[in-house]
């Protein structure tokens, strides 16, 4: 124990989890207190300043897929600690604690859905699970999503978020960048549209693969989007970064994405874009029939 140890016995930090779910929450965008129920109803967007709060995958699916239309694929593909990776905790322990925390098996949920009636292949990444890092499971599920999209002639939409490759799987995780990109080459060759939606944060290995390879690229307001982490860049160049660096306006200004789309407009915008690219729905694909 150090002389000036920080962890004094008897003093415990109050954990967030121990606090009761309040009716109000503070918006980090405008520092105002907002009514939680109102924020939930507004797709977790601050009704005062438009700040986009994190959203879990269930909420994302509910927001994008027509009610009852989502059919999940590859639900039972799960990660294993094949390297026996031990950091401050083992990978196995990390996987279990993240499963416990989120109630999900890994960082991405994929399946078939309808978007205003149109059948699509939809993937949603969830930053709450190990920073939505891409290991073999994320790589495999995204690849299968794209391959199924190609086989069934479906547009592919992926709501992206990620801290990058999953370090705990070593080089196997890096190779998922190539694997997913290869699948996208074939999907594109089939003349099908692919639209990634970049949410907070989308970086590193995912950014340098499928998140960037869209026919069109959309981003949510306020999302951090980039390749290298700001800390790494700062350490490398020994300078402060310009304000708004790696934020959507910066990316739009430098020509790196097509549009910044607020959450509330996203479903309609995607539907309009797909209508334009694929042609309007034909009567053979009636919107009322679930998948």
């Amino acid at each position, binding site marked *: 124990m150090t002389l000036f140890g920080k962890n004094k016995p008897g003093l415990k930090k109050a954990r967030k989890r121990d606090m009761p779910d309040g009716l109000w929450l503070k918006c980090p965008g405008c520092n105002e207190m907002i009514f939680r129920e109102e924020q939930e109803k507004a797709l977790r967007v601050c009704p005062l300043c438009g700040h986009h709060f994190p959203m879990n995958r269930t909420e994302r699916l509910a927001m994008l897929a027509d009610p009852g239309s989502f059919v999940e694929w590859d639900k039972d593909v799960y990660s294993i600690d094949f390297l026996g990776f031990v950091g401050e905790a083992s990978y196995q322990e990390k996987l279990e604690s993240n499963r416990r925390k989120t109630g999900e098996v890994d960082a991405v949920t994929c399946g078939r859905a309808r978007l205003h009636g149109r059948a699509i292949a939809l993937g949603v990444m969830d930053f709450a699970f190990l920073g939505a890092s891409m290991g073999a499971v994320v790589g495999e599920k995204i690849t299968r999503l794209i391959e199924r999209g190609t086989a069934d002639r479906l547009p592919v939409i992926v709501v992206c978020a990620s801290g990058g490759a999953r370090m705990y*799987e070593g080089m196997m995780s*890096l190779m998922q960048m190539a694997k997913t990109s290869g699948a996208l080459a074939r999907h594109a060759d089939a003349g099908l549209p692919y639209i990634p939606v970049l949410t907070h944060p989308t970086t590193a290995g995912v950014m340098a693969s499928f998140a960037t390879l869209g026919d069109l690229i959309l981003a949510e307001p306020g999302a951090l989007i980039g390749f290298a982490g700001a800390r790494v860049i700062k350490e490398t160049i020994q300078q402060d970064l310009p304000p708004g*660096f790696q934020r959507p306006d910066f990316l739009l200004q430098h020509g790196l994405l097509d549009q910044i789309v607020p959450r509330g407009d996203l479903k309609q915008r995607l539907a309009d874009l797909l209508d334009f690219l694929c042609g309007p729905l034909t009567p053979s694909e009636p919107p009322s029939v679930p998948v």
Partner: protein
Amino acid sequence: MAAYILPFEKPLLAIQNKIEELRRFSAEQGLTTSHDVAQLEAQLDETRRDLYAQLTPWQKVMVARHPRRPYTRDYITAFVDDFNELHGDRLLSDDHSIVGGLGWIKGRRVMIIGTQKGRDTKSNLDCNFGCPFPEGYRKALRLMRLAAKFSIPILTLIDTPGAFPGIEGEQRHVAEAIAVNLREMFRLPVPILAVVIGEGGSGGALGIGVANRILILEYAYYSVISPEGCAAILWKNRARADKAADALKLTAPDLLELGLVDAIIPEPPGGAHTDPPAIAAQVRDAILKQLDLLAKLSPAQVLEQRYSKFRAMGVFKEGSVPALTPPPIPEDTRP
């Protein structure tokens, strides 16, 4: 350039100093000490062999980063005939951290593309310490497409700490440059052979690494993140890079076992830099062997083989997901 000794090579330095001393002594006194020198040299060889037979992953990373290790241009000089260097991405500039051009290897036409490090401050500034800008990847893709158009096989030599992390890279969208290379390399109907000759630094290496065959030198490494970066994340301490290097399974034998590389090119004991002509011959022969094998594939087979190779990469399980073990009960809530 004075001898550069890696920290774990100290036992070698002691013997080398003795040899020097004896030589100097014999020159000054006019005495014959060749017998003793030969004995010491044998001892040096043996000690080096023993040292290199049991290098830790972190020590291999140090060898891979050795400042005298042969770089891309050294290999080109050693075994590429009539090298015709080609420049520029046609968009912004010519990134010197990626070298590319046409050449012949023992009578075979090859498009050679490789990341290039420098040996001193001046050359390192010129090639940005081997860390490519987006322009480098775009130049590489331009040359690869050129090769595909004229049915020329592509050889990439990988030796980079990673793509340059900086403001310019983000502004000019390095992520896009790498991602597009990953996708487009799957579309090139000519054989692609990648050789990791030194450092395989993450996405910056993979950006020219989507190949039909991937070879790696014995003491080279290929990793998703630098051991220092990994240690900074796991233990908030870059000094624990040795532990991170163990955990990442980044050495050539580890990668071969995982099925991520196809073959290992042996290095002389002491590393590639101790015998550059020998390692150049080894690398050339390994390249020729693979090029001749790949030449037997049709363009369609080349594409299919490359896709299947990467498609198969991934270790996971499928079936009923095992139930979670009950969470550990926090101490303060125990009765």
